[in-house]
């Protein structure tokens, strides 16, 4: 198998775990809706994602009680479904941050040594 093919297989798995973490980080800053979350992920990270794939992730976060949702319609504009992080979501995010920081440092060390 060629390196590019291996990367094609590895990248979606890598992204999936990372996206849940990024979504919670974004929602910790402020409540947000699907399109805004997708745009921010695109603007702030180099992660390219089919925007629709965020919705199964958001649904799972909601099902697990990490976020709640609320429909809002501005006077002028489209109806938006806002996601807000819960106490349980914040607690989970804090644990994710510790895992991320520890893993990131060790992986970075290995990358620098390789």
């Amino acid at each position: 198998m060629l390196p590019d093919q291996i990367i094609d297989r590895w990248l979606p798995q890598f992204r999936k775990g990372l996206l849940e973490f990024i979504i919670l980080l974004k929602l910790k800053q402020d409540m947000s809706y699907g399109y805004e979350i997708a745009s921010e992920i695109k603007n702030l990270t180099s992660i390219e994602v089919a925007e629709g794939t965020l919705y199964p992730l958001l649904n799972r976060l909601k099902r697990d009680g990490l976020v709640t949702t609320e429909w809002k319609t501005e006077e002028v504009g489209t109806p938006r479904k806002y996601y807000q992080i819960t106490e349980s979501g914040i607690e989970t995010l804090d644990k994710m941050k510790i895992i991320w920081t520890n893993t990131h440092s060790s992986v970075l060390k290995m990358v620098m040594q390789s």
Partner: protein
Amino acid sequence: MTLQFPIKSETSKKIWHGFERELNHKLKPLPESERDDIKMEILSHLYESALNDKADAEEERIINAIDRLGEPDLYLTPLISDILQAQSAAKGNPKAIAKSLIVTTQRSLLHLFLTAIFGFGYAVSMIIFIMGIMHIFNSDVGIWLDNNGGLLSLSFAFQPNAVQWMPEQFSFIAITVSAFAYWGLSKLLYVLLLKPNKSARK
């Protein structure tokens, strides 16, 4: 729906309604409240995404926004399956459990079907290849036709009342054809099952 998402051109409306129909069709397994909620959320995303697109024509902006969302199956299948599984687990309803299992296994069944077809194809091409090699040492191995010219059998032994098909060239043809078939099946298998989905990479 049109009032919530004001679209001007007729072509754009057709594209929009086409996409909405596709959502309605794919979301059918869900209860109405869940279906409306997801549809509204996806359409809201689509509208806002189209509104912020840089293309001049409205229809082009909508097409680009649909493209950015990715293949509907890519995000709706896991979404539907998750919701149905959660509901069926909560209710313990056998009908709901069956419904969620159908959605989850639809793709697996397709893969299973393709695997069976490819398995048969690989088996036949390998048998023909082996026969091609064996024919070099035993000229009775080959394809035998009945006296009317119809196919009788692939055989490893002499067949009475039958004529062997192209005994002189059989090894060459069998080895070449089976090698090409093996290569072709492998390419097809890669494209259909193993090649990463472009949408998934986006």
